[in-house]
């Protein structure tokens, strides 16, 4: 690994001012499991992705660590470890779809280290992006190797220019839960719904979200579920550990006598952003979930545009949506 400088931030303000002082070669680091071990050890860099020279540790900021419960929501510090969230009995009780998604992340050891903010903001796993040799759009190059190369794990929905799938399991669950993030920057603090947090390659191929270089994600707030809401999480992968989602599905369904009233069906592993499958939600609206799960799931086919080697993911997604809907109401 190339050398870098490491600074501890004491407060959010401290972190923000260091970021703005040091400029684009400075990055926030939390557990470092993606930034240091994934990106920097493998020397993933390019014109649009300078190799970080200065890292600012945010796990040393007390206000960014821990879970606060309120009557209508939970607020989780972005530097809280994934296992602290997943193992919290209150979180398991109130937001099972999130804790299930977190238990499916990486390994127990990594969950003890990786943080929520790091998980949501981790970089994609497209193997061309992660390969030192491939200078692709996402690194500031002028080519997408996935278009002509082996794209079995790339996007089947919403790709354009770049065809990554968003890697974060937490993000998929949080979008389904209609959560929001608090972000601090030089200009102050703002709250952003996850609906508007993730951005596709069309907007800016060099990033996956709206976070600006001088901004820090401070915490995440998740509203409590409406009464009669059922949830379920499914993630298909080879093993039950380590692997990123081939396809994942988070369902949050508010129902009455088995009929879909409101809710979200969100897919991971299919698109450059956690993908809200509105076609599926619409196909369920006002209908009995159990009876219509299969047909509604199949609606995903109408929006899928698979690449040369990943048409199978459309079948997988269809099957998983049906399964997760059925699991939710079971």
């Amino acid at each position, binding site marked *: 690994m190339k050398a870098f400088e*490491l600074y501890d931030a004491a407060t959010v303000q401290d972190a923000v001012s260091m970021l703005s002082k040091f400029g684009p070669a400075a990055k926030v680091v939390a557990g470092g499991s993606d930034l240091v071990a994934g990106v920097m*050890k493998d020397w993933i860099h390019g014109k649009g992705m300078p190799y970080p020279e200065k890292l600012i540790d945010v796990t040393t900021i007390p206000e960014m660590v821990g879970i606060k419960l309120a009557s209508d929501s939970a607020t989780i510090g972005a530097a809280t470890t994934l296992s602290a969230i997943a193992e919290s009995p209150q979180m398991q009780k109130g937001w099972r779809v999130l804790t299930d998604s977190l238990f499916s992340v990486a390994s*127990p050891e990594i969950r003890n*280290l990786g943080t929520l903010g790091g998980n949501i903001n981790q970089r994609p796993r497209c193997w061309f992006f992660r390969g030192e040799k491939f200078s692709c759009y996402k690194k500031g190059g002028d080519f997408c190797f996935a278009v002509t190369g082996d794209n079995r794990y790339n996007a089947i929905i919403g790709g354009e220019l770049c065809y990554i799938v968003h890697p974060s399991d937490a993000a998929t669950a949080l979008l389904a839960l209609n959560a929001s993030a608090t972000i601090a920057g030089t200009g102050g603090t703002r709250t952003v719904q996850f609906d508007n947090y993730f951005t596709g390659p069309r907007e800016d191929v060099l990033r996956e979200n709206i976070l600006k270089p001088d901004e820090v994600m401070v915490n995440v707030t998740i509203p409590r579920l409406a009464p009669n809401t059922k949830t379920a999480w499914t993630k298909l992968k080879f093993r039950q550990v380590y692997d990123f989602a081939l396809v994942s599905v988070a369902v949050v369904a508010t129902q009455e006598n088995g009929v879909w009233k409101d809710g979200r069906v969100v897919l991971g592993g299919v698109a450059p952003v956690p993908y809200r499958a509105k076609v599926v939600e619409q196909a369920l609206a006002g209908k009995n979930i159990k009876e219509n799960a299969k047909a509604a799931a199949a609606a995903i086919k109408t929006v899928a545009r698979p690449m040369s080697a990943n048409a199978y993911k459309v079948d997988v997604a269809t099957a998983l949506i049906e399964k997760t809907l059925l699991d939710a109401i079971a």
Partner: protein
Amino acid sequence: MKEWIRLRVNGSDHDLIVESHWTLLDVLRENLGLTGTKRGCDTGECGACTVLVDGLPRNACLVLARSAQGCAITTIEGLARGGELHPLQLAFQERGAVQCGYCTPGVILTAKALLDHNPAPTEDDVKAAIAGNLCRCTGYVKITEAILAAAEKMNHDGASIVRCKATDRASSIVARQQVKDALSQRRAINEHAVVGQSLPRLDGLLKVTGQAQYVGDVRLPGMHVGKILRSPHAHARLVKVDISRAEKLPGVKAIMTGRDVANVRYAFVDTPRYSADEHPLAVDKVRYIGDEIAAVAAVDEETAEEALSLIDVEYEILPAVFDPEKAMQPNAPVIHDADYEGASVWEEWGAQRTPTSTARYGYNNISGQTTVEIGDVARGFALADHIRTDRFETQVTAHGALEPHCAVAHYEPSGKLNVWLSSMSVFYKRYILAKALGLATSQVHVHSVYVGGAFGGKIDVFPYEFCAAYLSRQTGQPVKIELTREEVFVTTRQRHPMIIELKTGVKRDGAIVAQKVKLIADNGAYRGTGPVVIFLAHAFNVPIYRVPNFKYTGYSVYTNNPIRGPQRAHGAPQIRFAMDSQLDLIARDLGLDPVKVMLRNAREKGDVLPNGDVLESCGLKECITRAVETSGWREKRGRAQTGRLRRGVGISACSMFSGAPFYPFASAAAVQLHDDGAITLFTGTMEMGQGAETTMAQIAAEELGIELADVRVIFGDTELAPIDLGNFLSGGALVTGKAVQLAAADAKQQLFKVVSEMLEVPPEKLTARGRRIFAGDPKIGMSFGEAVRASILRNGGNPVMGRGYYKPLPDTDQYPSLARAKGRFTPAYGYAAQVAEVEVDTLTGEVRLVQVTTFHDCGFPLNPLIVEGQIDGNVSMGQGQALCEDVILREGQVFNPSFLTYALPVSLTQPRAARGEVASLEPKGPFGAKEVGEGSIAGMLAAIANAVHDAVGVRLTSLPIAAEKILLAQNARAG
């Protein structure tokens, strides 16, 4: 940025100067010398580096050392308190949860954190907790058992007795019951005191405490770090390799390129027919992505890496070919343009070079061909009632040993070369290295180290080993080259992917009358073991079924893919997948039970194989019938099911050599008797997890009538131990074991002579048992130590040393012909039959391996605990290769060279394991023992494929059997 930090490790504070980018793993190993924390990947993907940070397991390779300040860090070295081992350490040692030991410190610490938080975990809790700790050797069965046992013991010993929750343990109890049955059967045939007993391993304590030394742990004063520059192109001419910028970098000590070693050539296969085709560094061309171009020795890793980036290479890109069938076509790019000339490295051993040319094969890029013809296939097919033709394809798989390959070399001014290597045969490596370096064989000293798993992947002599030695000669300093995980995946050999076209004719009752096999193995850019694997695919298959009319043509083909080499059961998994998948299909076609078809064709004791090998022991049929009975096959096969989750069972069988005649053609052993009644055993065998150190000591102890604890073993060292075949082709138990037995017998005979004079009884009346030598009544005699002391006093100081040697197939002095499969192959074959039960989720296509029942004929289990561990490891590796392991290659580029993306099985997917042995007592083997370490991976693939077919009616003829393939096949069927 350098700064002072204070780390609290195992209760003591350490003040250190570190760079910001150093990880906790770097600092623990390099600065504090705590090498019990292992580096398996360096990227958070294996768990070998797990340490406890404030009581929670974390990957030390992910934690920056500086960020670990203020935390209490516990490493494996800090677990034992006041010289007393933690109950987990004891349980791992006693229960066979340790094999190569490389994963062990990490798993034990993870388990400690679990038990600290949850003193009475269920089996599922344990599996979930250790899910991030990869273990390639044990298949997690014994690890899980050991953790549960430690929990139980701690709860008993503690003040309040917390009862273990029993919920999820029923499953393992079933399996354990079956093991018990097998044990009692075994006891009936075992009249021995030390062999045949499930004794804990001799190396267990070193491994559970993190003290076992692997190559990466070797530290020598003034040691430089070496790194290798590799080709980014699959096929290119080297126009220029310019090292002038790199040489100027401060800290660089030596640089070597292909030009420096252009006349050095070696290869695994270097026979009269097939010349050596590898150079340590590319001379004129690079032939695959990863091919070695230059090597650098520098003061540290960062400098070495930077130097590599300063080497300027100019390439002329050449057309490349990656598909073996395309490579065989007349217009394909030629990968090795000219035949290599010159002497075979084996000339001293009688090999004569007859120049050959690839042209005569009628195809391009052929690196080897094996042709076998038995009977008359045309006539055979004419007699058949039913004929099937199928095409099977197997994937590229990786060995996945947790220890990355590493070499340390130290040239002494005298010209002696000391090396520490990740190896499977120290004598083989010594020979090839010495020849390549132009040294006398005995000038090279390969030192003994533990090996963190090998599975065939550490047999070959690799360029990095040569370069470490060469750079050490250049610099006069020790040089260490440790490969990254990515380099291990790409450049240290993979399993040959094969295309197998199989045509089989049977009678109505399933009797095979004719079979025609065309097999193509892609051996990548260099010959590797291409000609060997196509020979072995035949040789490991022929001992299973009687096929009167048989034609086999195997080709190994050059492509611009990474090099392929030996991997556990080398060639057998591929061909057994094809054979038993097709036999299942044939049974379906004919409406027969596949078990009946297998038994109808299975070989028996006394059969003589076409090459002349005689099956003096053969438990194949018994393995099949016992596996079928134990697994509940009859109730489970062909169940009518309608639910979402559907189960099925499948069966397959396999066989394996017990050693073969190859360099150094024999194994020797020696024992020295000490005056306290203990002995030292000297053997050249390697300890890479398979338990050789322990089983060899058991053999010596049994023969001499002493205890295992009385034996100390010097192993795997070319100067301290006599020659040995090493540990491939599964010769360990039979060949080395026999040499050890004979060495002990030699010593015993000498000792008996002394005792017989003293007791005035003829030596044949004497018995050695229970540490005594006696005539009839144990009281009439003396202790073993007394006898040794008497020998010294009465025989001019002779403390007694025994020698033994054994050559497999003593009457043959030739290798079998790889091209014709003629000549004797091996003294004996091990057998196994396996029944797999799977559960398929029809909605997602996911396959869960529920249970695997393995019955194995290893002749005689020298140490049942170790034998079970070998079977578990084979089952786990077979599970991975059947269901999820796949090296993904596109145009020669490996896309998943990491443990994250190359999916080794994990604890959570571990199936229930039922295992049993059929003791066929091989007459040539020590106490009747023969092969156990490799074979039973090969039955797993077809067993699983057949089980999936049984469950959901989908037949997959290509591996791995991935969820999406099943889903697509189902959807296609549904229309």
